[in-house]
């Protein structure tokens, strides 16, 4: 095994992760969560039209491959005159994808908060929006950390798909180095280990957040 190659390629790969994979995942997750909250509230709306819109969105996102979604946005939309650079196209596609999956998590988390909490907020005089933001969502957040962490970890790995729309993230770097050196096994394994490292760090972060949010819960 060519240890020199491993040593030489480590930094370019890690750098691809730090400037490509991680920012792409963070930006998409942040935007995706906002979108997910909107979709979750649509689904919970008593208005049948709004609720249907939310359901349709979730169904479309979950029912179609992420790779195909990426292709539609990057290669398909330009034919309709809507043209995105690789990075914006990737962020749009990943955000929309997270929006669909996380919406179900957030919806379930909101529903898991007892109805009495809403009523307590209202009788204290708060509007439904304020009750949602100050009373319900903080409690829902706690329940949704584990499943949302799952979504985020999946997203980190899924960003490797962005390579097909020419985003230079870690996996694209790996492909370049592998093609140049012809050491496919070594380079792709190395890339896999760096993804694994990222996800391990994230799982640790999840534990820390859970612990922090658990302080008000009886054990």
């Amino acid at each position, binding site marked *: 095994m060519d240890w020199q190659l491993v040593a030489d390629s480590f930094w370019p790969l890690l750098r691809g992760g730090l400037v490509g994979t991680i920012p792409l995942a963070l930006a998409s997750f942040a935007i995706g969560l906002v979108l997910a909250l909107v979709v979750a509230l649509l689904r919970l709306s008593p208005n049948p039209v709004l609720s249907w819109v939310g359901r349709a969105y979730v169904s479309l996102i979950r029912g179609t491959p992420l790779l195909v979604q990426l292709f539609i946005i990057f290669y398909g939309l330009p034919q309709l005159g809507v043209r995105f650079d690789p990075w914006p196209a990737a962020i749009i596609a990943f955000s929309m994808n997270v929006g669909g999956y996380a919406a179900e998590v957030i919806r379930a988390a909101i529903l898991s908060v*007892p109805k*009495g*909490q809403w*009523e*307590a907020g*209202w*009788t*204290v*005089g*708060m509007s439904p929006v*304020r009750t949602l933001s*100050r*009373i319900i969502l*903080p*409690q829902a957040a*706690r329940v949704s950390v584990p499943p949302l962490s799952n979504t985020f970890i999946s997203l980190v790995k899924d960003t490797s798909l962005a390579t097909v729309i020419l985003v230079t993230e870690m996996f694209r770097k790996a492909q370049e180095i592998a093609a140049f050196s012809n050491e496919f096994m070594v380079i792709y394994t190395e890339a896999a280990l760096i993804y694994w490292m990222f996800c391990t760090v994230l799982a640790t972060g999840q534990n820390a957040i859970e612990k922090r949010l658990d*302080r*008000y*819960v*009886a054990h």
Partner: protein
Amino acid sequence: MSPTDPSDRPEPSDRPVPDTLLTARGIEKSFGTNHVLRGVDLEVRRGEVIALIGPSGSGKTTVLRSLNGLETPDAGLVQVAGGPVVDFGAQAAATTGAWAGRRAGARRAKADRAALRDRSAMVFQHHNLFPHRTVLENVIEGPTQVKRIPRATAVNRAEELLARVGLEDKRDAYPHELSGGQQQRVGIVRALALEPDLLLFDEPTSALDPELVGEVLTVMKELADEGWTMVVVTHELQFARQVADEVLFLDGGVVVERGAPAQIFSQPAEERTRRFLDRILHPLD
């Protein structure tokens, strides 16, 4: 710790009898085919304590929840503390029909609920404290977020109220660190901090261990002695007897009998009242 001075807010000119604090007329409510309220009237004067008693399913909790819009009756009028008369029948009619009409109806329903909630506060059977906030934060949430009272003022007042119920040392505890009785006392303090005209209690001791009931009832009795206006749904007949000015016995969605506690408990006029009291007072016979 005294009820809000009524002179604090502008008095509408069409205010009825001056010391009537709450008027409810013809409250009706169905859940599906279950007709739980069949026209309930209620009148409470300032400083009075009204106890609602009756078997489970009699509608007493639904009456209470209608008074602050947690339940939306199908028909009936409610007015609290000189506020607008909320006409639930008209509201129900307005929320059907075309889209624009429904929008207007929804706006009206919202204003109606606000009118009731601005003037009353509720103590729940399961306290419904906010578990992610400390005792102090629970108490100042309404004053600071809704009434826009400066935080320092709200904190001072919250500390006074907590001291009144013997919980000054619990201000930084989370609700799950308290006993059931302490939780319910915080629930009462949270309601008092809103300085409502009317305090509503929904079976405040039903979920408590028997040995914790007394500390909550003691606080409630003190509030009554201080002149707070209270409507209390309760199974604590002894409390109703000692503290209430009037007792209403509900069964099957109607007020079967109402009167002074001495009369209701000693010489109930109605057979249904008598049977209910018998079952509660002599459960083994």
